[in-house]
């Protein structure tokens, strides 16, 4: 916990604690922890000498910020107008169905996948677009093609797990 706050303090100091940099500070902090834990928000408020309500208010206003942890793979289905009319909704449904997300859930219980929609990525020429972890862009997707991409990740993860467990096995033997 101590170390966690150390990094936080560094980020705040790099912005000279300027209140107008609050959004940028939260962005950097979220980059670090993948979400904004409550105690972190309180810490930022105290360090910047503003009320926790101010920090909480900003953190909950912007869609980029998340107060709950997200999965290892964040799948963002673009639901801008162009993607919508080319069928982004079936893709979103198929993903949720396939990953077993029900009700208001957006993250799988094993913390592997988060599925969310985003209003427009500005890549309308590739509609419908799905982005996995902001660097893997899939254009002109179909429910079928995106499930294939997800299954690829799943099997890669499983292989990784097997490899890990066999590696641990090795260590134990040694």
């Amino acid at each position: 916990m101590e170390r966690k706050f150390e990094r936080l303090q560094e980020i705040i100091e790099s912005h000279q604690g300027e209140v107008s940099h609050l959004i940028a500070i939260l962005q950097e902090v979220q980059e670090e922890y993948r979400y904004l834990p409550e105690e972190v928000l309180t810490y930022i408020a105290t360090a910047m000498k503003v009320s926790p309500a101010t920090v909480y208010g900003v953190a909950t206003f912007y869609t980029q910020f998340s107060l709950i942890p997200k999965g290892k793979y964040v799948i963002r289905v673009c639901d801008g107008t162009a993607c919508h009319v080319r069928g982004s909704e079936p893709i979103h449904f198929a993903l949720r169905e396939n990953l077993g997300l029900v009700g208001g859930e957006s993250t799988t219980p094993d913390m592997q996948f988060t599925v969310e929609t985003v209003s427009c990525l500005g890549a309308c020429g590739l509609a419908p677009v799905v982005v996995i972890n902001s660097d893997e862009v899939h254009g002109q997707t179909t429910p079928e093609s995106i499930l294939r991409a997800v299954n690829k990740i799943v099997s890669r993860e499983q292989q990784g797990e097997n490899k890990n467990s066999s590696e641990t096995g090795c260590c134990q033997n040694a």
Partner: protein
Amino acid sequence: MLNSRAELDVLKKKALTEISSMQKRILVCAGTGCVANGSLKVFDLFKQLLAQRPELAVSIELEKEHSQQEISAHTSGCHGFCQMGPLVRIEPRGTLYCKVKPEDVSEIFEEHIINGRVVSRLLYQDDHTHSPIETQDEIPFYKNQLRIALANCGRIDPDDIEDYIAHDGYQSLAKALFEMTPDEVVKEVLDSGLRGRGGGGFPTGRKWLFAREAAGEKKYIICNGDEGDPGAFMDRSVMEGDPHRVIEGMMLAGYAVGADEGYIYVRAEYPLAVKRLRTAVETAGKHGMLGEKILGSGFSFKVNIKEGAGAFVCGEETALIASIEGERGMPRPRPPFPAVSGLWGCPTIINNVETLANLPAIILNGSGWFTNIGTLTSTGTKTFALAGQIAHTGLVEVPMGLTLRKIVFDIGGGLRDNKIFKAVQIGGPSGGCLTKEHLDLPLDYDSLQKVGAMVGSGGMVVMGEDTCMVEVAKFFMGFVQNESCGKCVPCREGSRRMLELLTRIASGSGTEEDLLLLEELALIVKDGSLCGLGKTAPNPVLTTLRYFRSEYEAHVRDKKCPAGVCKDLLDYRIDPSLCRGCGLCKKVCPADAISGVKKEPHRIDPEKCIKCGTCISKCKFGSIVTN
């Protein structure tokens, strides 16, 4: 470091000589769309091939008796023709290769670059004759365009300030600083009739005049790059493809109104634009084009970049200011207008990216040149983002007043998959729908306003007959309801109730009274909301109600969705007389809802079916039907 106008001219000359001495210049598009399609790999391969062939450079050198490297490869900004990407442009001829894959690179290199023979299989093919078209300017998509804001996009390397300077970059700033007074700059922009390209359409010169006359030592220029309108991506394209033009536009504004500091507010969803802008600000600083006493004049200017964090309402001027100040991005009542009291209470000009990108050309060529383009009250050009069910998706910049028909059919190539034109949604969540009867309507601020739509940011989503207008209205209302900041009641509550009504109608449980209530509520939200978001939010509902009322009525009276979109009114069935039992639908169904044995008719389990339509698109026999 450039210390005078003369030094800028020397650098321009040097950069131009360098470009013209180049026998071939390879420009690989590195816009968001092309990068997603793998253009960076294509670029790397070109670079590798260049590096592997030093002997080639020598032989060419001997031939032309030149000592400089004669072939160069660069990344460029977005060409706007994203669907055909990755795009590779080869200068000086302006040959455009489409959908270039890594495995095509060596062929282009050997054939075109070395032997000077065009690789026709990678050229764009005419829609009708299917014959290849070699140069970019001859392609119908580009032929009817007039590019001012997008002039350099795809033609220069956005990370290279010298490339920008070679293409008249920073010339208009030099002209303003050394030949014009700030008042003359304001007057030139006023005379040009330039209106805000972000949606409002307010005359830019008038805005500047307010800020110029406003009292205060400190003034700010803000570039609004918070392009939140789903379906519009022209600002992204300019910021990614020609970032120095945006900075030059801001400096012209700064000089005109007496501001020495500017902010560029960019959406966080545009990481590449943020990166290119940061590089541009840094290199401009190193060249002395930003900072103290620019080009030895008395004018100083500094640019900061602020990343948004995902809030559509921040496109609204006062909300954007609140966001830069580090607060929740909620709008404030106007007046006072930002031009009088804006960022930290100082007079502030907020101009949209495309507006700013027009300024260098206006100052350089004069207002008379600009007013010759477009219509009397809407001068110049406008960039539209063509998307949806259209053959050629992309960015098009055309003179104001061009008809919808020209844009959709001549430039956009008509609808894709032979669909029949139904409507165009223009201006995003603030805009409205245009129908067949508007195909010959000139597109300019005033004509669009008359029919209940607006230019907005220029998003233009084309819809075919299989699009349900109730669903479209519901989609936009869902967007607005989600993005409403919650400050004023009409927008916060009104949008929620309107969405509930639309959901009810789309699910088949709506009544005729609901239609009347929806219309009444829409007018209240329009009149009573605090900011532009709420005031324009009902437009999609009002225009679809106006032009497609019968479709709404079919939902409430007959409980039918004529376009076959609204799920609750649909059932997917397999027609046993048509089904051959190939099993393809069963294989592709993401919900495992289809069962059956090979060569016998299959069936869909309505309980499991998520109505995604995957099976319909795969069935070769047309046996899957909806009602």
